């Protein structure tokens, strides 16, 4: 039986998140806008939720649609303006998932106000930026593209190591190797055998690789 307290995510991201989805009323943060944040938004959208993307004029809707985001149920607010906390709160009233990048640093007071709105509305706030107190934090530790040579080929797929940690039930860090994106534009779990050596050997990612292989 699906958990009604969470918004579903695409299959490949389930293992990264406590309870296998985005807990309603919580804040999920990624340090920077990218395909990972669009992938997180794609699941709820494909499941019928309305999504808003705020303050990210460069959001690639085509890539998001490839991941499963439904453009018909998406609102874009490219510029949030000066009163952005109010705009984000308004978006949270209407949409179950709001992906946004704060134009200015969010003060503790602003964060508390938005989190209170969030708990009332049972939506999920997906922040592309810094958000102290986020329940879950995801980040790409290492990534490498395949398909491109020295003057030939084309970009095919990207193998990325994603780490999730956070507070409470998300406290234990979880790591996954993902195709972000796979060659067909979707997200898939990467088989350890397929991980390109040059990505896995990245010194910054070395320790994490070991954990994954050991953990199965």
């Amino acid at each position, binding site marked *: 039986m699906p958990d009604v307290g969470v918004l579903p995510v695409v299959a490949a991201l389930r293992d990264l998140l406590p309870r296998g989805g985005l807990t309603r009323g919580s804040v999920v943060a990624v340090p920077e*806008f990218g395909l990972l944040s669009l992938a997180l938004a794609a699941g709820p959208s494909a499941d019928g939720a309305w999504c*808003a993307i705020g303050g990210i004029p460069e959001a690639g809707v085509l890539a998001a*649609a*490839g991941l499963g985001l*439904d453009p018909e149920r998406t609102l*874009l607010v490219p510029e949030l303006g000066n009163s952005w906390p109010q705009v984000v709160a308004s978006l949270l009233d209407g*949409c179950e998932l709001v992906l946004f990048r704060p134009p200015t640093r969010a003060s503790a007071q602003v964060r508390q106000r938005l989190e209170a709105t969030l708990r009332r509305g049972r939506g999920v706030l997906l922040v592309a930026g810094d958000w102290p107190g986020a329940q879950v934090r995801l980040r790409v530790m290492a990534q490498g593209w395949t398909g491109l040579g020295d*003057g030939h080929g084309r970009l*095919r797929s990207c193998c990325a190591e994603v780490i999730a940690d956070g507070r409470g039930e998300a406290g234990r860090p979880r790591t996954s190797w993902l195709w972000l994106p796979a060659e067909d*534009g979707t997200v898939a779990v990467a088989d350890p055998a397929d991980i390109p050596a040059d990505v896995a050997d990245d010194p910054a990612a070395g320790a994490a690789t070991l954990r994954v292989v050991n953990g199965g």
Partner: protein
Amino acid sequence: MTQERVLVVRCPTLCTPEQGALEQGALEQGALEQGADRQAARLFERVVSAVMEFCPRVEVVEPGVCAFAARGPARYFGGETIVATKIAAAIARFGVDGRVGIADGMFAALLAAGAATGDAVTFIPPGATPEFLGGQPVSVLDDPDLAGLLHRLGIRTLGDLAGLPEADVASRFGAAGEKAHRLASGRDMRPLDARPPAQDLSVTQEFDPPETMAEPLVFAAKALAERMHATLNAKGLTCVRIQVQATWEDGRESSRLWRHDGLLTAVQVADRVRWQLDAWRTDALGEGPGGVVSLRLTPDQVVRATGQQLALWGEAVVTDRVARAAMRVQALLGHEAVLRPRLGGGRNVSEQVTHRPFGERGELGEKGEFGEKGEFGEKGEPSLPAEQPWPGRIPGAAPAVVYPVTREATVTDLAGQPVTVSGRCVISAAPAQLAVGTGRPRAITGWAGPWPLTERWWDPDAASRRARFQLVTDDGRAWLAAVSDGCWQIEAGYW
């Protein structure tokens, strides 16, 4: 064929130099630019409204001249001369020199009104029109060339012209002559174009003293909306949008258009007024704008009410909750701040997604239906068909980061020299380093290209010629870059 009886009111002092039939709407909007003309137009507007007391369907023929079918009003008031006298008296009250002419057909009535008899009313009895026209000089035909020619041929009056056989006139003078002959013999068949005028359907509430509290304003807005809806309903009309205008104590005005489509209730209109006032207060931080002195609702794009059909399939139905949220944001940031994306075709990553402001109905192509070309201009580019092949499109997964405006970049080779691409698409050296904007340089670990793209070469303004590359840098990121006129630009990023 008997001619319609026409009553023409002509105010010689208000006939502005602009010739030709101006729509009444244009008059109302003050299309006449010069001050004196505008004053004349305003005065004439009052004349027209006075005339409309006698007959609601009045055609404004040109500035200073209006006309209506005399039959109905004549029967109601007990005679054509009685109506004419009453109208002349009504106009005289404005201190305007007004002449009234009644005759069979518009042409004769215009001449009758223009006839320089001392009397304010020129009455041509039914059937006497050919006789009246017969005495007029050919110069009244408003065709100087033809009139001059006729004059030299010894045809001095319309009576002379009407006496000639129509076929001969037509063969000698062509279409213009035929038309003149028809007018001269009193067979002018131009029907009156008497549409009911565009009415002012707006409703206004003044506040004295200025109202500073939100609640009474919202309450007043609800009452105003009820009044406006009642007026529209009584006429069988509805509006596509509604304009809410609030004038503040310091003279500033907040005006916003809201989608209505005949679906909003008075309470929902009041909600929108509340959001708009909230947004205004938030914007005007610091120096408060004071209270509101007047609130005005204007139905915009009034159309006949035909009932509403909600979409059954196709477009995802926007739930009330989403619509309310989107409109709240629109109240804060403006109509075009909330967009809905639409996927389309095209060779460039930036043109494959187009946007339309939230609340715009239907497809972008349908926009013409509302005649709003300019308003949503730049966002309203038509999307290119997605189903057609777009050779030259970058294959593979779409980039997650698509810069709305490309970012400048520097690409250098191993020797530190800028990498260039020749006109024949030959690259000067393998790219080795990429610096985006003023950022630190990143080492390039893989690259492919150049893929040339020449678009719209037939249009000098829109033509573009670029060579595109995919680059991978040592931080694991991939970039879509393009060289155009020797400059490197980053169009998109893959991460």
